[in-house]
């Protein structure tokens, strides 16, 4: 019997809106997929693209960035910057071979617990058929060379 694959989603949730939405989902006892591990940031604009890449490299199967709806950002336009960076990041990720579904941007205000929960559910189900990303193991491979090199293939240093 093998366990069904459970995607691991790292979520960056902004303090003022989406994290509160997640809190609300909790207090309202909304059932939703437990696959997202939430990290609270003050603003979605705090999300450096390096965080996303690092998460993917270190074992995440997907990354969710969640922020306030445009126009409602506590810092006025932090989330606009998020949208700009996210748009370009998606183009970049395609070139890296990372499937579109693995990095998603969600707007959820503090009162939208249902919306956030539904987004997590949806993303989990979108990731399941893609399988685990396991970047280090499958892409970087042993020794980071991207494939296993049998010892006999590499010639021993010859006595010359």
């Amino acid at each position: 019997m093998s366990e069904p694959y459970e995607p691991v989603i790292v979520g960056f949730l902004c303090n003022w809106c989406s994290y509160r939405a997640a809190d609300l989902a909790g207090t309202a006892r909304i059932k939703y997929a437990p696959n997202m591990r939430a990290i609270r940031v003050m603003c979605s604009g705090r999300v450096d693209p390096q965080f996303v890449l690092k998460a993917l490299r270190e074992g995440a199967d997907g990354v969710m960035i969640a922020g306030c709806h445009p126009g409602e950002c506590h810092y006025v336009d932090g989330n606009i910057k998020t949208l700009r960076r996210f748009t370009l990041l998606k183009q970049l990720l395609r070139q890296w071979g990372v499937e579109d579904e693995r990095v998603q941007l969600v707007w959820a205000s503090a009162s939208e617990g249902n919306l956030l929960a539904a987004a997590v559910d949806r993303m989990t189900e979108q990731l399941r058929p893609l399988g685990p990303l396991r970047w280090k193991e499958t892409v970087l491979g042993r020794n980071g060379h991207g494939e296993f090199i049998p010892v006999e293939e590499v010639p021993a240093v010859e006595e010359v």
Partner: protein
Amino acid sequence: MAEKPKLAMYWAAACGGCEISTLNIGEKILVVDDVFDLAFFPCIADFKVKDVQGYPDGYIDVCLFNGAIRNSENEEMAHLLRQKSKFVVAFGSCAYEGCIPALSNLTSRQATLETVYFDNPSIDNPEMTLPQVKTRVAEGELTLPYFYQTVKALDQVVPVDYYIPGCPPEPEQIWAVLEVVVNALLNGGPLPPGGSIVGAGKVAVCEECPLEKNVKAIDQFYRPYDLIPQPGLCLLEQGIVCMGPATRSGCGALCPQANMGCRGCYGPLDGVEDQGAKMLSAIASVVGVGAAGEDEGEMAKKLDEVMSTLVDPAGTFYRFSMAHSLLQRAKVNGKQA
């Protein structure tokens, strides 16, 4: 008479530009010759791998290692030279972070071999011959190194003491570093802390660049031949991609002064792990689309349009730093480029 300190300069998967740039220190090369004895420098002297293998560990005082780790021979030489050297310097962008050869990390070993040996129009190879690690010929056996799937930086195979960034490092910077080294070896002068990036600045290229800089709000990206840039004005502001904001200074901002955008060859600034991601963040942030109060859907659509005028983000933002990037190589299937 005390023995002179030993110098080595070795090239792995390199182009030779680092050697040329070193020789472009002009007459100062005679000073280097005066101070050091060569221990291994395949470009210009006749020491062999056998000699290096015979040296006691740490015999070489300074090893300037340039070139990326592309194949098994490069990796073996990195290990050997690390063992035999007191200080190993990752010299130039290839050894520091992969440089141009590491663009190969967006494709695969298989795709590379097929294109180079099968598919190109001038190839005459009906038997589909590929270079082999071992080949039996009538007279005996011949060997070649193994071509890896992923290009690595030097510090991904051996510990590195210092890094000199640049493709190539500028001669003035090379001399500045050599002066410090010579002073340390001859007069006991100070050396920077281990792991330092030397021969470069601590701020972004923008600080060195004389072009006028204003608040940026890019509404479209242009290819360099799409327009004649206004002289004296920041290229990025005019929509021409320039990696200046995410690149370490030290080169004197040469490329923008030649009216061509920086491509980031001096590597990232302190505190940055992934130069490409930082550049992406910087450039996307100043796209002048979207403001609080605008319709979400409209904004997203406009942004998509603008961002698609920025072609090949992976190859541009990671032009020199792919091996040191967080993802390091692309996930590929077969011949996907």
